[in-house]
């Protein structure tokens, strides 16, 4: 051995055994990058902590980007329509749900009243030891005049389900302190000193085919696949709980136009309500489903099912990765109290900066 090579040779061997990045880390980094690369219009709804979907595949994204560049031109000419659509049974059921939605009259929010959107959600949380499910429940009070104060009551997160010892250890490590309910209050829904919450519903075409083209166009390049991401967009929009009946109907018809969408469960129960689940199997092993009551046209919620083991260490195939149920009602008053930054302290860095004096944990 050449004596002077020793140090470099040795150095090259030091920590040569480091682990490759985990699939979760690679996916998260990729998702963050694509989030930064996505046009602002492709992000209709702010996802909160833990909501970022893992699992972007090379083919899907690159394919979507090039399809977007070459094919998706306008709302009138685009990806919708000519490639077929959802499975016939799913399309039929969605048409019935759309018809029912149109006959539904939306609750009227009178002056001084609030639309109360109650969200009961479960998300997968992952750490060094394992993955478990935790709750993320809250109630958002949206004023009749959206320039007024919105109030968001966020319940403490609790452990919902664990998957074996590693998972239990992780859950215990993450939930050492008993959390308190957090009340956040902000004019225009600019919670945590962020931008005003604008659900962007005004931009959505009412014609189902144009709507679907619009969705393909604004989500191009994001997600596991263009069709999968179109479903995600629809779920994101419905999850807000503020979509008027006619737009809900258009979104159901747009969903019926997405190839690969099928009825995945005729009796899907979420938070005590039963409906039909419409989902699409994705190559990342996660199926997102939108659950609708076809007789009333109401949105019940959504859930994520793991199609294979190994998406998260120790979590078996068929497990629930997360779910959200949404109910709305009109109330006369919102809870008192609460500040713009809630538990995160005081606003910092100017209005709309998204900065609070205490960083999120």
């Amino acid at each position, binding site marked *: 051995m050449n004596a002077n090579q020793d140090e470099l040779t*040795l150095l090259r061997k030091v920590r040569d055994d480091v682990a490759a990045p985990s699939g979760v880390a690679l996916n998260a980094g*990729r998702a963050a990058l*694509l989030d930064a*690369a996505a046009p602002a219009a492709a992000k209709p709804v702010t996802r909160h902590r833990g909501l970022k979907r893992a699992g972007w595949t090379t083919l899907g994204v690159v394919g979507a980007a*090039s399809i977007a560049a070459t094919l998706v031109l306008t709302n009138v000419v685009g990806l919708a329509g000519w490639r077929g659509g959802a499975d016939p049974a799913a399309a039929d059921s969605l048409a019935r749900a759309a018809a029912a939605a149109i006959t539904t009259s939306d609750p009227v929010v009178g002056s001084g009243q609030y639309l109360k959107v109650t969200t009961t959600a479960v998300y997968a949380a992952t750490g060094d030891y394992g993955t478990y499910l935790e709750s993320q429940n809250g109630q958002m009070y949206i004023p009749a005049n959206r320039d007024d104060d919105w109030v968001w009551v966020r319940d403490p997160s609790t452990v919902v389900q664990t998957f074996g010892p590693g998972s239990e250890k992780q859950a215990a490590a993450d939930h050492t302190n008993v959390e308190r309910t957090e009340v956040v209050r902000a004019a225009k829904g600019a919670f945590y000193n962020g931008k005003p919450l604008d659900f962007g519903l005004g931009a959505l075409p009412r014609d189902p085919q144009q709507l679907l083209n619009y969705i393909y166009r604004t989500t191009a390049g994001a997600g596991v696949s263009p069709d999968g991401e179109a479903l995600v967009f629809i779920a994101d929009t419905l999850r807000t709980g503020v979509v008027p009946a006619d737009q809900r109907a258009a979104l159901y018809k747009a969903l019926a136009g997405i190839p690969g969408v099928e009825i995945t469960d005729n009796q899907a129960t979420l938070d005590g309500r039963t409906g039909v689940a419409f989902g699409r199997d994705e190559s990342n092993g996660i199926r997102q489903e939108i659950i609708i009551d076809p007789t009333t046209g109401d949105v019940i919620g959504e859930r994520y099912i793991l199609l294979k083991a190994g998406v998260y260490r120790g979590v078996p195939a068929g497990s629930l990765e997360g779910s959200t149920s949404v109910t709305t009602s009109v109330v006369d008053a919102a809870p008192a109290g609460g500040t713009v930054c809630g538990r995160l302290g005081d606003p910092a860095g100017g209005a709309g900066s998204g900065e609070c004096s205490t960083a999120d944990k």
Partner: protein
Amino acid sequence: MSSDSEIIRRSRDTPAAFAELYDRHAAVIHRYASRRIGEAADDIMSETFLVAFERRAAFDERVTDARPWLYGIATTLLKKRRRQEARAWRGLVAGGAAEQVDAIRHSVDGHDDRLDAELGIRRLAAAIRRMPARDRDALLLYAWGDLDYEGVAQALDVPVGTVRSRLNRARRQLRQASGRIAPAEEVEHERESGRTDAAAQGA
């Protein structure tokens, strides 16, 4: 296969195309960061590509291989994690060296006995920890980033001559730490012995 610079050029009009660069290089950036600071490598990997994406307009398109550029960004991000890195090196000086020897034992030449190798790593780690940051960056980009002198120069945005002097200084310190002294001409020889050219990647 398109070169890195082609992907970056495409991403100016189609931002999502940048994901192709991520798919191509995320793992090597992670590996480099992981060797330097351990677990936080996930964050460095992600941040490196976010910064790169933001600065893609500044990328010199005459350079086909983006790796030196990406390594440079990662190295800058690592500066904010000095304490974490120092801790990792201290760990290697203290107990971690024995584990490393276990890991590399099979590749250590037969005449190097276990204790020797352990001591060697310990001294190496101690020397690297004490090194000026700019010398350490050059050394680790060269040894772990698998860049040649030109690549290290691009990554650190300094002239090749500067890289040469930093690396010579760093390696002298390593040799001193291990009690070995190498003749100057052999140092030069090592420089010439054709390392993989990073620029060949985009072909």
